[in-house]
């Protein structure tokens, strides 16, 4: 039987007390008297009291020790990474000095070792193997990851990241509108496309594994990676690679992989692994088979169910029709790709030249407009040409480029003015950044910079 508690006498008083309104003594004693006699009101009062004392304790789901430790380690690593990135760029005021952060990074490695030591002493041997996975990323060695390039809206668990930030296993990286290039160990470069999300599942001595939740990634793997492995997991299967350049894209109705260099092994649930070699692409749905990437010749498919050992034969096969995989991208895209590659190699001058050529030859293409921001950043940070950088950023803003890169461009403009020593203009641009993108990372930096400038002016 349902009953309804309709008494409103105490309720009105509770409304006043919660709003911190003072009650006359007589009224308080009246309420106390009422609660004594009215069961529903008394019960509600008891429940609320219970809630006040026990809510924070009872509302939290339990977390096992391993996950708890992992989350703490994750937070520590990210706090250190964000701080070091900020210090590295010299733009953010931080409670940590650069020297201290360097010391902290070294200390982190030592502390990880100590924690492992303590675990062993505590007799936590059964958990050691799993814990090792958590800690190994911070050990000295080639098994680390970092953001080599970040532009636009790139976040790790909703926290915006900047270039140089460190990666740890379990990081979920979302690229909304922009791009991110990751370095996983020293031998894997991963370019995450716009509107994509990946998760770094593993990063350690055995190699790296990422999970593509949606969108696309393009990977370039150094052939000397062996015997380490690199795997991209998708909802439709796994793509394992060793020494190659390839792309995996999760579209609405299919997941496909295209290989530009070397070969990859594709493993789909319930099927034998098969190989895809350079110049070919395939859909991971268990039915589609190899199609050529770059030559639109008619022909039948030839490599279905090929085993991993057959990789060497695949290169010799005749390329087939191109029904599913796009053909060689148009020239602006090629130029952009070359510029990115040079940028990754640290060849700034070469990259800048390619970007400039792209802007000159295809001034109205999307690639050219987008590349103006990258060009500006290289000119500013790597070639020490703030005036040229300013011009690049201005051109991007005039062309009304993508909104998300506008904040990068404005931020770059402010830095260019700073490098040129033009304070008034810098302040004006910083104010624009804050006004137009109030919740962005750039706005936070702009506020801090403005504070510094104001403090300097006051002196």
């Amino acid at each position, binding site marked *: 039987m349902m009953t309804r508690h309709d008494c409103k006498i105490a309720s009105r008083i509770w409304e006043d007390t*919660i709003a911190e309104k003072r009650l006359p003594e007589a009224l308080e004693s009246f309420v106390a008297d009422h609660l004594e006699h009215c069961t529903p009101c008394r019960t509600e009062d008891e429940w609320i009291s219970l*809630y006040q004392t026990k*809510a924070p304790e009872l*509302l939290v789901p339990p977390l096992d020790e391993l996950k708890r430790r992992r989350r703490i380690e994750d*937070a520590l690593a*990210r706090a250190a990474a964000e701080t070091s990135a900020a210090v590295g760029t010299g733009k953010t005021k931080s409670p940590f000095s650069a020297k201290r952060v360097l010391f902290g990074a070294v200390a982190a490695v030592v502390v990880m070792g100590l924690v492992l030591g303590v675990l062993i002493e505590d007799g936590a041997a059964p958990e050691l193997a799993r814990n090792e996975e958590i800690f190994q990323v911070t050990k000295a060695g080639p098994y680390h990851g970092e953001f080599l390039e970040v532009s636009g809206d790139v976040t790790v668990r909703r926290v915006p990241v900047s270039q140089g930030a460190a990666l740890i296993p379990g990081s979920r990286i979302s690229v909304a509108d922009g791009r991110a290039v990751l370095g996983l160990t020293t031998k894997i470069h991963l370019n995450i496309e716009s509107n994509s999300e990946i998760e770094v599942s593993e990063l350690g001595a055995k190699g790296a594994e990422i999970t593509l939740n949606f969108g696309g990634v393009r990977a370039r793997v150094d052939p000397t990676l062996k015997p380490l492995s690199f795997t991209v997991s998708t909802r439709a299967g796994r793509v394992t690679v060793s020494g190659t350049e390839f792309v995996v894209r999760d579209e609405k109705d299919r997941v496909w992989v295209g290989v530009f260099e070397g070969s990859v092994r594709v493993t789909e649930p319930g099927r034998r692994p098969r190989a895809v070699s350079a110049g070919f692409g395939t859909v991971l749905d268990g039915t589609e088979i190899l199609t050529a990437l770059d030559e639109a010749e008619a022909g039948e498919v030839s490599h279905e169910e090929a085993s991993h050992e057959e990789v060497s034969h695949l290169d010799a096969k005749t390329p087939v029709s191109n029904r599913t995989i796009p053909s060689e991208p148009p020239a602006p895209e090629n130029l952009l790709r070359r510029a990115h590659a040079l940028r990754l190699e640290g060849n700034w001058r070469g990259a800048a030249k390619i970007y400039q050529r792209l802007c000159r030859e295809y001034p109205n293409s999307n690639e050219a407009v987008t590349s103006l921001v990258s060009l500006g950043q290289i000119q500013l940070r790597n070639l020490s040409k703030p005036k040229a950088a300013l011009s690049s950023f201005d051109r991007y803003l005039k062309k009304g480029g993508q909104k998300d890169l506008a904040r990068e461009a404005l931020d770059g403009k402010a830095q260019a003015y700073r490098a040129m020593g033009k304070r008034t203009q810098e302040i004006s641009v910083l104010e624009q950044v804050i006004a137009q993108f109030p919740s962005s990372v750039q706005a936070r930096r702009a506020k801090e910079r403005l504070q510094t400038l104001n403090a300097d002016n006051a002196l």
Partner: protein
Amino acid sequence: MAVWNHEKIICVETEKEQLEAEFALTQACACGDDEAMRRLAAMLFDRVRALTYTVAGSGPDSDDYAQIALIEILRAAGSFRGESSLQRFTDRITVRSVIREIKRNKRHRWHLPLDVADEEKIAFKSIENEIHQRQIVIKLSNIIQNLGYKFGVPLQLKLALGYSVQEIAELTDTPYNTIRERLRIGRKRLHRAIAEDPFFSRTHAGEDM
């Protein structure tokens, strides 16, 4: 003056000593002492998580919010001046951070931890008081979260975390009188929801208890 020493666990007797020890710990964090940061993070993690779940509900993003808050605390450790307790300081950062994340995340889900059928099964078949208490707390939390950000968050801050109207106004960047009014309306709606909720009606009636 207390000095942070990671060989020892902070052991204090008076409130002043406690504040000094906390201040020393946060200063060590600000200086990049990794062990101090680790200790601070481990010390605060459960509290930060509890606050996050109280304010943001038990939706799928709450653990992420808690982690963001913890990172902010680690970064802000240097600005702790030791005037109020460390818990008060970190609570404020946590609540502010969680509120900001809720506002930023347009897909934030408050989440209902259990459906009514499950609650009734557990609540009325068990005579263990602790389980029943947990059910009441979860159910009340559900009701408060269902009041939405406007009324739910101030009510949670007031009831579950004991913040004053003034503090809630500061934390949520909302005028004092607006918060008072929201608390008043929220409490009224909470009363009405309790009155109409079958779970509480059955508990009133004492069925199967």
